[in-house]
């Protein structure tokens, strides 16, 4: 079986510990930036999906189906390698001055996750009684205003648990950013492995961090479900 001398000290202090911590920081940064953007984009797509103008609805449908049925890795490569062909030049120049790998990962993660968030928001909206929309429209609100003031504030509250789940998926998916050289947690674990040949230790550390994040967030969802959502639904 395993003939291997474990050396945990190598990852609990010193240079390699700092590398892993830098990786955790980048993973969190990548996930938080992407989830905020993905939420906004998902909100827009969800509203477009429910629009009464059919071309807008069809566009949103095509967007949702295409992004959900293609692998994230392919989308990451598309934006990383192909952005100079599809994005305007000034945007590319701006992204390069910033941090291009990070930006490409954010674009891909945002677009991929926004599709799932849009579907979650849509099912949240469906759970709001139709009459509320009709009442809002008949008291003079436009479609967008009734969404903004009546429907979405309620729907988003119901959507929060699935949204947090999406955040969790996003954090796990952000590990794919290592393929284009974003120095997040998985990348750093791999880096430690190739410098020290201590693969088991490095990947154990990374696994524990990912697991810890998942468990904490799952616990938060449980608390939210019990405390907040019970009061929203109990009205």
């Amino acid at each position, binding site marked *: *079986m*395993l003939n*291997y001398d474990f050396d945990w000290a190598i990852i609990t202090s010193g240079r390699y510990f700092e590398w892993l911590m830098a990786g955790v920081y980048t993973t969190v940064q990548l996930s938080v930036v992407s989830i905020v953007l993905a939420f906004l984009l998902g909100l827009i797509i969800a509203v477009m999906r429910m629009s009464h103008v059919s071309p807008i609805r069809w566009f949103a449908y095509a967007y949702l*189906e*295409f992004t*959900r*049925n*293609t*692998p*994230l*890795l*392919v*989308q990451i*490569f*598309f934006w990383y*390698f*192909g952005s*100079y*062909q*599809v*994005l*305007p*030049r000034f945007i590319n120049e701006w992204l390069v001055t910033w941090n291009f790998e990070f930006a490409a990962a954010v674009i891909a993660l945002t677009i991929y996750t926004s599709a799932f968030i849009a579907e979650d928001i849509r099912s949240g909206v469906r759970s709001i009684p139709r009459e509320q929309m009709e009442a809002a429209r008949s008291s003079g609100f436009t479609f967008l205003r009734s969404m903004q003031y009546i429907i979405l504030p309620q729907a988003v509250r119901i959507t929060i648990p699935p949204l947090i789940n999406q955040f969790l998926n996003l954090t*796990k*998916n952000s*590990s*794919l950013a*290592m*393929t284009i050289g974003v120095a997040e947690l*998985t990348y750093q*674990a*791999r880096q430690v492995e190739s410098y020290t040949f201590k*693969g*088991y230790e490095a*990947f154990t550390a*990374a*696994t524990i961090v*990912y*697991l810890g994040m*998942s*468990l904490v967030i*799952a616990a938060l969802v449980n608390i939210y479900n019990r405390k907040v959502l019970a009061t929203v639904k109990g009205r």
Partner: protein
Amino acid sequence: MDLSFDFSVISKNITYFMIGSYPHGRLGGVALTLYLAVASCILSFLGGLFLGMLSVSKFRVIRYSATAVINAVRGIPLLMVIFWMYFLLPALMGRTMPESRTVIAALTIFTSAYMAEIVRAGIEGIPRGQTEAAISTGLHPWQAMFYIVLPQGLRNMVPSFVNQFVSLIKDTSLAFIVGVSELTHVATQINNRTMIYPAEIFFFIAVIYFIICYAFTSLSRWLEKRLTWQKAI
């Protein structure tokens, strides 16, 4: 923005995209992607069934440990599982493993945990009274599970299984990372060789993945509608 696309790079390499360098070399491209997906789907269906049944066991120790395994696997990224298999499998087996086997093992472990959740939900969706009735007519609890609960539960699970298969097809793209020449790997190879058509190449393989996955997504929706309709009568 330079919106002058040249898709001739696709037509020139189309056989390489589809089957890799087969029959003169290794199988690759779309064919290998489908092979990886189907092989790990069958294995993870069995794994999921096993784990799922353990997670509804009446023995607390078994139930808790099965749930712990399921949640642990669901809590880490697939990429981590692939790396673990990449390092662990050769050490455990005492010999080198072909990369495609490593990936199938990783995909199986990862997807089994998700399949197990589907199986658990399917089993719990069948009223308890049915199991009790089966046991009181003299069936062994195992017989009740295999002849009464699972046949009904599995039918309800079919749409979720198909959805999981779609995720699996998308997840096979991660085999790229350990150098298995499936579709995404083939695309990066062609991209490295031609250099100037990345948008065309990656858009093309995205469309291929889309066609395969969308077909199965539609199938799962159709099955779902049919199943609810059958339940209604």
